């Protein structure tokens, strides 16, 4: 009976789980099927967990149950309580935990099989060379994912500067560090022959890998964090796959490889949306040079009150709202919609221009505006709406900066040259709601703010929008 379970039931259920993962990911690539896709993937996970517990048979479940309950509570509460605006950093954090888990599993196996029994032999001779090597890779990739994701989390959360931190000679330092980690890892697998040494070297490998992850992400600017998170997500898949090699578990190998490969493709798609390459994002310290080179002094900036802006809106026949991260931070999506409703009631045509990387993650604005019940068809993608700015009376930019920077098209020397942007300046009047003249993630000046047809309205996005709503209401009542 047990043998039948081990040799038939468990592998078949694992296969079922793997197939459901594939169908789940596939479903997630279409709006219509996305929710079902996610449910299928979750079901696949449930099958995998139950099957594994079946496979373990009668063991001491105390640690397992404790771990599942603690992890489930933390993950569940965090996921249900997080604000929609903070979604990107939440994903980064979860991803870090996934990578960390893979590193911990591999370390646990090394302790269980080599350190604790006290064998005087190398891990390679005890576990087999391939298992010892993949255990090292699992620790390395998992730890890089963990520390890299934490840095991405801190940068997105604003608890750490979003601008690139460049240490001198970083490419040399990183090269040496990588070489050192590889050497320590090979020594761990094939060289260390005493249990105490194995344990010690394992910790050294994990420590070095954590430093590699930190150094990999700190030179990358806040604007590129979405790409970084997607890339780290791909890495956490790879770490899981390596753990699968250590354990000889095909389901882990398959699911990890799926996430690794699809994550890489998604990363690539996101890079293309920003007209960048992955290498450029990871190694160029983007944003720094621009911040030093370009002047940040502004001249000819005109600041207006919500009252004056409301008068422009009142007279406009067509208005395009351009949401950006400022809208997200201020939680102003509902107020934006209230304003749009008000204008529409007066017969104004209102639509929203969605830049593919507005906010801190692709699709960020879609999620936020959907939360505020903005109808789907009102959200217009960049390529469709760009020709429409010419015939638009007023554009209302809410906390967006780099995605409407004309320098991307007009200044070939700009760091963001070539990045597709929303051509808002073609509209008759451009209104910019912004807290201050501080630069966006790219760290560069936006000359749009100096244009003659631009009105700056300084303040918190939500407060300004609320002001606009009451002013428009008053004007409507007066008319």
């Amino acid at each position: 009976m047990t043998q039948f379970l081990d040799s038939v039931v468990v592998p078949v259920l694992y296969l079922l789980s793997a197939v459901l993962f594939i169908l789940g990911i596939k479903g997630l690539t279409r709006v219509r099927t996305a929710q079902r896709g996610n449910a299928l993937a979750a079901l696949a996970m449930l099958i995998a967990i139950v099957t594994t517990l079946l496979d373990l048979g009668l063991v001491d479940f105390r640690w397992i149950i404790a771990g599942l309950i603690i992890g489930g509570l933390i993950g569940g509460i965090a996921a249900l309580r997080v604000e929609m605006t903070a979604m990107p950093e939440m994903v980064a954090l979860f991803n870090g935990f996934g990578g960390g888990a893979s590193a911990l599993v591999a370390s646990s196996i090394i302790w269980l099989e080599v350190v604790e029994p006290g064998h005087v032999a190398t891990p390679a001779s005890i576990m087999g060379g391939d298992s010892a090597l993949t255990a090292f890779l699992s620790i390395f990739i998992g730890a890089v994912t963990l520390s890299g994701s934490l840095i991405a989390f801190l940068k997105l959360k604003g608890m750490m500067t979003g601008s690139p931190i460049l240490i001198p000679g970083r490419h040399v330092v990183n090269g040496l560090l990588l070489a050192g980690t590889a050497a320590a890892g090979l020594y761990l697998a094939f060289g260390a022959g005493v249990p105490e040494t194995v344990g010690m070297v394992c910790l050294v490998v994990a420590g070095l890998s954590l430093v590699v992850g930190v150094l990999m992400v700190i030179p990358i600017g806040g604007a590129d964090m979405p790409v970084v998170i997607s890339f780290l997500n791909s890495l956490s898949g790879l770490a899981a796959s390596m753990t699968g090699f250590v354990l000889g578990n095909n389901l882990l190998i398959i699911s990890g490889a799926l996430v690794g490969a699809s994550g890489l493709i998604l990363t690539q798609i996101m890079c293309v949306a920003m007209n960048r390459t992955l290498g450029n994002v990871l190694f160029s310290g983007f944003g720094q040079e621009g911040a030093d080179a370009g002047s940040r002094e502004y001249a000819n900036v005109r600041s207006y009150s919500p009252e004056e802006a409301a008068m422009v809106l009142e007279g406009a026949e067509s208005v395009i709202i351009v949401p950006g991260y400022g809208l997200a931070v201020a939680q102003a999506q509902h107020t934006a919609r209230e304003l749009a409703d008000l204008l529409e009631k007066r017969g104004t045509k209102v639509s929203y221009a969605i830049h593919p990387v507005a906010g801190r993650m692709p699709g960020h604005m879609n999620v936020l505006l959907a939360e505020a019940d903005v109808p789907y068809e009102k959200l217009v993608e960049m390529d469709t709406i760009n020709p429409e700015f010419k015939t638009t009376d007023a554009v209302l930019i809410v906390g967006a900066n780099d995605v409407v920077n004309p320098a991307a098209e007009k200044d070939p020397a700009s760091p963001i040259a070539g990045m597709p942007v929303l051509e808002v300046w073609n509209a008759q009047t451009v209104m910019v709601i912004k807290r201050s003249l501080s630069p966006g993630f790219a760290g560069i000046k936006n000359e749009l703010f100096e244009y003659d047809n631009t009105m700056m309205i300084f303040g918190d996005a939500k407060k300004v929008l609320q002001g606009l709503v009451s002013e428009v209401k008053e004007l409507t009542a007066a008319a």
Partner: protein
Amino acid sequence: MMGALLVGIYVFVLASFVGFEIITKIPPTLHTPLMSGANAISGITLVGALAAATTGNVTASNILGLFAIIFATINVVGGFLVTNRMLAMFGKKKAKS
């Protein structure tokens, strides 16, 4: 018969191809949910973690295993829930329009 390692490599390479091919075109709207969903799937390492703490003893390997289970469960539960929350908003708007 192929060795376990070779079978593993076959499986890894073929699954990678599936992963590459499965995502051809994806609307920008779904970039974040897909990333989040794929991220939850990478929590599959939980399967390995469960096998890493199977005795009641307080040993280094069990403690590492316990933390592996906690971390992986956070990834799995949190990942799928967050993805579902994001996608539920698209569902909501579709139902109304």
